[in-house]
């Protein structure tokens, strides 16, 4: 088992490098002056060059050659101090070191990003965790229910409703719940409180989740061994709980464990709208203040969490289905 885990970890390394490659290509390969121009469309050259320098985009891209210290770089200046730095003082390697050491740097207000993340993560968690637990529980219960009553009018109606629920975008749920439960019914606080974002999160995810689990369960029910069980006289509910559910664990686990790491990133829209000072809100602010560094860090973080999720999922498979290790 340990070798399995180690093997899985090693498999993620190339992906981590790939993620770095993509992010690097995105942020550093384009002509920095052009990127500056996106932010300041009519600024004069000097302003663009100053922006480039402030974001460290004037440094050599891949390797710091001795010649670089003497040439005029993108920001219109010579940087003789490059001569004293190693050959690895380039955008590529500096960035690489950043992600290896988890040194995220500072944001526009000169606050260390790692501090902000530590400060904000618990707030995001306070919304995502309950929402997650409620959604999973509700969806599994409801799908089992629908699997029990498959092919009845109830099932058909439910399918239509879930598809309709999936077709409503999050902002619509958000505005509806905010107005309905917050303003009109005065049931829940409209700001700085987790109830509404949890509600919106659950509603928005329910449709898709119920459909997904229902498909998973129905796939199992159609299998032969279920027919055998039924022939043996096992009750319908017995079939669901003792046979279908355990054998559906792999897809369920995939869905559940994969979403675990993202519980701390929070939802941009929900946090900003309902005043939860979490990571989603940090992202939202970064978009508005054009804070490259924060967005870069969040992209890495997202990818990193995804990989942890995949790793955890693979490990959880072992617990659910021992056959996996032998493959």
């Amino acid at each position, binding site marked *: 088992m340990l070798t399995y885990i180690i093997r899985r970890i090693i498999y993620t390394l190339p992906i981590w490098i*790939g993620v770095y490659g993509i992010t690097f290509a995105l942020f550093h390969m384009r002509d920095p002056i052009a990127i500056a121009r*996106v932010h300041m469309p009519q600024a004069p050259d000097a302003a663009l060059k100053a922006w480039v320098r402030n974001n460290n985009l004037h440094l050599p891209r891949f390797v710091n050659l001795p010649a670089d210290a003497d040439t005029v770089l993108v920001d219109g200046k010579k940087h003789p101090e490059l001569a004293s730095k190693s050959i690895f003082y380039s955008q590529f390697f500096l960035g690489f070191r950043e992600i290896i050491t988890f040194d995220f740097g500072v944001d526009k207000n000169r606050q260390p990003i790692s501090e902000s993340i530590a400060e904000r993560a618990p707030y995001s968690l306070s919304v995502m965790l309950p929402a997650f637990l409620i959604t999973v529980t509700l969806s599994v219960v409801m799908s089992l229910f629908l699997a029990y009553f498959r092919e009845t009018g109830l099932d058909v109606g439910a399918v239509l409703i879930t598809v309709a629920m999936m077709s409503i*975008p*999050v902002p619509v749920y958000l505005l509806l719940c905010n107005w309905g439960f917050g303003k009109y019914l005065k049931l829940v606080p409209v700001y700085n409180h987790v109830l509404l974002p949890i509600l919106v999160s659950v509603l928005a995810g329910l449709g898709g989740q119920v459909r997904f689990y229902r498909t998973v369960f129905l796939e199992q029910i159609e299998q032969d061994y279920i027919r055998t069980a039924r022939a043996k006289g096992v009750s319908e509910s017995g079939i669901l709980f003792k046979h279908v559910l355990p054998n559906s664990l792999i897809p369920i686990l995939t869905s559940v464990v994969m979403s675990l790491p*993202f519980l701390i990133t929070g939802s941009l829209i929900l946090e900003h709208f309902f005043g939860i000072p979490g990571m989603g809100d940090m992202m939202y602010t970064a978009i*508005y203040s*054009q804070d490259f560094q924060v967005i870069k860090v*969040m992209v890495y973080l*997202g990818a990193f969490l995804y990989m942890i999720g995949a790793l955890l999922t693979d490990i959880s498979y072992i617990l659910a289905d021992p056959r996996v290790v032998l493959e």
Partner: protein
Amino acid sequence: MITILIDIAWILAAAAGIVALRSFLRNPSLKDARDMLASRLRVRIAFYVVCAYLGVGLIGQIKVPEKERIADRSLLDLSLQWIQKERTYSAPFASEVTGIRMLEADRELNRVKGIHILGTDINGVDVMHNVLRGASTALILSFGTALVAMPLGVLLGILAGWSGGKLDDLIQWLMSTVASIPWLLFVIAFLMVFGRGLFWICLAIGLTSWVGTARLIRGETLKQKSLDYITAARATGLSVPRILFRHLLPNVRYLIIIDLTLFCSSVILAESILTFIGIGVEQGTASWGAMLIESEKELMRSPAIWWVFAGSAFCGILPLVLSLNVLGDALRDALDPRAVSSR
């Protein structure tokens, strides 16, 4: 000049699409599928709805250049120019505007001159008109993004499934890498580096959403690879590209169509989220997401101005996305032999 060329390109593309669709649907081997689809009422309704939106979207895209005007108007705008522009907000079928100080002196100005099924927005523009305009933005966005994601996904999927070995590993590595970056973050980062606008949005979403399709196609290719007809084709000595495109591709086509339908629905939902955050389409482009973000403040009023919200959500986004989803599911039932019936 350029607008005319773009218009012609649009019409040709639409025509090509329709021809392809018809030939696909007329295919005799699909008779069973067609019957199954046609027999269900909701599938028929969904199909007509999608066609209606497509039509509206198309005429909303064709711009007619006029020298004296600053902004070109589309065929849609021209056909609807009989709709009156009011002074400001008005409820559906109302006789007076609302939402501003109702001064006696402005009585004449405040009268609603036309009939508006969904009322008017703050600048007096008919809401239904805006919803229809939004359809064309949704259309371009779906097509544009699909144009990026679909070919990429299909190509890489087939290559991966067919080649096996090193190339397969490489492509799978690429798929895992792209899949591990959360799409929203990638799109935001992309738009910050390259700029806003429909073109970049299509590119951004396309570059991050091809993985699902690729995985699907790869799986199917692996299955098809070992089937007799492929072995026969190989035995005949056909070149690999020919086998792939003449023999393999038609047999995975059904997957592509199903995927495309569901893909378009998720792109439209994504657009509303992006615009709601504020990094979606540019100011001034009509889109349902833009209407939603304006409705946030309108709902705060008392009495609430609900018609812009209702219009964009329930006459714009919901019918189209719902129909696409229903169609996609139905197509899957009809065409995919292994799918669990969602009936």
